[in-house]
């Protein structure tokens, strides 16, 4: 049981390390887009502070969406996915390992970078900690949900648009409760409620996503 999980986990981390440029992509996208906001809208601190929570969350979501497409693609192209499916080991654990690695190399860096970008958008001080906590859980939800879409579209030549259409509606709850966590903190309200909902979303997708993704991969490989 443990074997498939740890073997895939270690292999994918090693591969991510070998493809450093690809890992940097979403982080650089996040950085660039957020840098452009004050230039395009207004450099005025008070107006930026109003929109900062929403902007940071939307951009983190798009950055995550950008990277999710490739989650199974290289495995599909080089035939390792074909091998994984017929291993005498539970596929959902191997899938979970892949999702975990995806989160470690995209969601986690985005989360750690967010406070710095919050400073650039003059996010009020009360928002920083809720921003980090909401992104920490939220990006994990995004990786888990995105994996289902990535698995469904892996065999398609141009699955990018379809993937966005499948995944976007499922991203909405995470975005709504993530952004409202930060907004409520800035406005001086308690953030327990939205954070709890995010936690529930995380628990639910953690439970469902590996099974759904494994099933979707089997369907894709049938083509």
């Amino acid at each position, binding site marked *: 049981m443990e074997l498939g999980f740890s073997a895939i986990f270690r292999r994918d981390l090693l*591969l991510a390390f070998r493809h450093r440029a690809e890992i940097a992509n979403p982080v650089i996208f996040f950085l660039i887009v957020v840098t452009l906001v004050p230039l395009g809208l207004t450099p005025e601190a008070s107006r930026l502070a109003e929109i900062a929570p929403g902007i940071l969350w939307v951009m983190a979501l798009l950055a995550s969406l950008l990277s999710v497409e490739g989650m199974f693609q290289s495995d599909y192209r080089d035939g390792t996915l074909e091998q994984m499916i017929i291993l005498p080991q539970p596929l959902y654990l191997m899938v979970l390992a892949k999702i975990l690695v995806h989160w470690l190399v995209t969601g986690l860096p985005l989360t750690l970078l967010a406070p710095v970008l919050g400073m650039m958008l003059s996010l009020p001080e009360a928002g920083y900690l809720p921003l980090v906590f909401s992104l920490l859980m939220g990006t994990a939800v995004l990786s888990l949900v995105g994996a289902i879409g990535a698995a469904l579209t892996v065999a398609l030549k141009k699955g990018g648009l379809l993937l966005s259409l499948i995944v976007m509606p499922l991203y909405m709850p995470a975005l709504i409760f993530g952004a409202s966590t930060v907004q409520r903190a800035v406005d001086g309200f308690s953030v327990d409620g939205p954070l709890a909902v995010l936690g529930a979303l995380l628990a639910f997708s953690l439970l469902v996503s590996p099974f759904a993704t494994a099933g979707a991969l089997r369907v894709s490989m049938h083509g």
Partner: protein
Amino acid sequence: MLTTEPNTDLFSPNSLDLRALAFERDDRMLFSNVGVSLKSGDILQVEGPNGCGKTTLLRIITTALSPSAGQLLWQGQNISQVRQTFLHNLLFLGHLPGLKQALSPEENLIWWRRLNQSQAECCNNEVLARIGLRGYEDVPCFNLSAGQQRRAALARLLVTKASLWVLDEPFTAIDKQGVSELESLLTEHSARGGIIILSTHQDLGIPGIERLSLRHESLGQKALDQNSPFVVDVA
């Protein structure tokens, strides 16, 4: 070099039965009524023109695809009931080599062995040297030629404990010497009591090899080679 040190461990008797397998895709019958019985020591060559369903048939045997009709039996039991034991005994090499391009042949082999729960982490260098990749153990696969990548994938044959080998076009991109070495490796596996199913367009120099010919359904009924001694169903 593909010759192994003589390995005399014998496999326990195995049997694989294909019963009246059929596969339909987009309302087109790819093949139907394919039936074969294989037992320890058998080598089956699946042949036929391009697009006749060789790869599909092999993927059905690996359980990655399910047939539209018919049954697969392993040791006389339906494969869905003994899927775990069957997969433990299965080695599949597809069209795609299943190598991670950013990893070296050695890393690929180590990763594959870990996933397949084969114990030994040792001798990977010796195995790669025997397969003809001495000096390339640490070179990333994207720097290797097509033939070398194929060899890196074939290295699995030397470390696997599986008794059933399903090989899809294993001779692609392999040089002449490699072909004869691979043939002797197949003969040896068969002598140890293993079963091999492979698809290839080459005429193999292995005595006693059985053939299964698939034809285009549109050009006539798909049938097994009449000379084959273990034909169960003839369409």
